[in-house]
């Protein structure tokens, strides 16, 4: 069997990602809509609740939830990226890519890479506003944060791609993505402390891998404000990525 060189796999990932980014750049409306969504989340939720809740662990509530809100944004972006795979399949473009002389896993992974690049860009722009909300952001916290947001988006992008390979119809997939997203996002401790609710809620939060992604990001952006050990957060995220990539490899074939 001919094994493609690492450089060939890298080029294939880059080409698929570049194609997706090129297409997204032709539809800037979607990016603007995502930005508006974050602004509303911040204004209405975070700043609105600031006066009611006050501070969490010595941080203004809006500053505490700010990394969580960005996490919601990039994870939404990641899971939704599966829809691009489904649309490409629906409109035939995927067929052409599936007969390319590259391992098939390169196709969803290239799309995940494109998603991570977009997520990094969005996170870099949004996180820069953190100090205005009272977030004690350092340069290293900013850089690590942007990288962590990109990784989180990529890992949940794998979930989106896996869902896209499991659900053949685009309309059904849209509903499935919505259904998957709500518990994923709101049972993650993104907008409140994961250990601040009743026991059942805490148990649900601990069963949600996004909780650990959010917690890990909080560790990196505002050190000392995580709820679980950083190694546990990393272990869960890496384990999830490995499991999703394995399942995806099985779904798309060689």
């Amino acid at each position, binding site marked *: 069997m001919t094994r493609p060189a690492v450089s060939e796999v890298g080029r294939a990932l880059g080409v698929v990602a570049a*194609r997706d980014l090129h297409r997204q750049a032709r539809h800037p409306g979607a990016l603007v809509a995502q930005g508006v969504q974050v602004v509303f989340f911040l204004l209405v939720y975070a700043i609105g609740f600031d006066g009611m809740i006050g501070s969490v662990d010595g941080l203004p509530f809006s500053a505490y939830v700010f990394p969580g809100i960005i996490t919601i944004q990039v994870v939404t972006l990641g899971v939704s990226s599966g829809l691009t795979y489904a649309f490409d399949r629906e409109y035939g473009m995927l067929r052409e890519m599936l*007969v390319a002389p590259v391992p098939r896993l390169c196709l969803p992974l290239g799309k995940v890479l494109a998603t991570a690049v977009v997520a990094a860009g969005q996170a870099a722009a949004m996180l820069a506003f953190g100090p205005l909300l009272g977030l004690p952001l350092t340069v290293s916290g900013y850089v690590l944060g942007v990288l962590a947001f990109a990784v989180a988006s990529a890992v949940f992008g794998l979930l989106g791609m896996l869902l896209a390979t499991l659900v053949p119809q685009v309309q059904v997939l849209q509903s499935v993505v919505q259904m998957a997203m709500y518990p994923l996002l709101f049972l993650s401790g993104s907008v409140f402390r994961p250990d601040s609710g009743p026991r059942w809620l805490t148990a649900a939060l601990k069963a949600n891998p996004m909780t650990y992604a959010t917690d890990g990001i909080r560790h990196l952006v505002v050190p000392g404000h995580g709820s679980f050990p950083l190694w546990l957060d990393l272990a869960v995220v890496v384990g999830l990525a490995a499991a999703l990539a394995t399942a995806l490899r099985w779904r798309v074939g060689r």
Partner: protein
Amino acid sequence: MTAAFDARDVVVRYGRRTAVNGVSLCARPGTILALLGPNGAGKSTLLRALSTAVPPNSGQVEVFGHDVVRDPVAARGRIGVVFQERTLDPDLSVDRNLWFHARLFGLSRTDARVRIDEVLARFGLTGRRRDPVADLSGGLARRLEIARALVHRPGLVVLDEPTTGLDPDARRAVWADLRRLRDEDQVTVLYATHYLGEAELADHVVIIHSGVIVRRGTPAELKDGLATPTLLLSTVDDPVAVRQLASAGFDARLSPEGVSVRCAQPGSHIASVVRAVTMAVHEVTVREPSLDDVYFATTGGGTA
């Protein structure tokens, strides 16, 4: 010489349905081969197995010596595929569609630029290179898809119903392109078609029905093999005429041209054939065997 492709005892099943059932087929480089058969015969499935889109349940397929199951990546590198449905990216320009294909199929940036210029010139698309694909006519979009399938210099081009939905001029242009590929580049062309007339353009024709190959040969061989001329009748009620002729012992079938009656010496049977039907006969003609006759005789007159 290594065969362009070599399929041996290929079986492909979708659930309980067997789409391709023990097909063996090969072609040497620089030939044009047509797969002819009715809807659901297994033509597209066979093309999908050859292009690694679907793995065969049993049997073996090799493309230029590369097994499509054991070494699909190498096999894909030698094949260009033109799908029945449009697979161009409507969000991108002509140029960009070719660019991303070239890069995904392993061409360096420099080689991709050179090759894109070549195929655009060859297919008369240079002047449209910056246009969005959505602005192209059906014929030009099809030519672009064929051009794209050739960007990475494949030795085998597989086309599924390449001229479906095209007007006669566009169809003629596509066939001229495919013949040039064979004659100038020694590319092997394998295509599935519904059009009997287009099958005649191939060097070899394979008639496939219910997942098995029922006849194969050059168009001339197939017509010679049938060896029976046909009497064509036009009547006021062709289905009834077929029944009356059959009950009179004639080998009569309904064909797109009317009622066809196969008989060894049609000239001496005209009177008895006309007497066997009770309604008015508008016209009787004697026709030598065509690929249509081979097709209908072989498949039992399935929808072409």
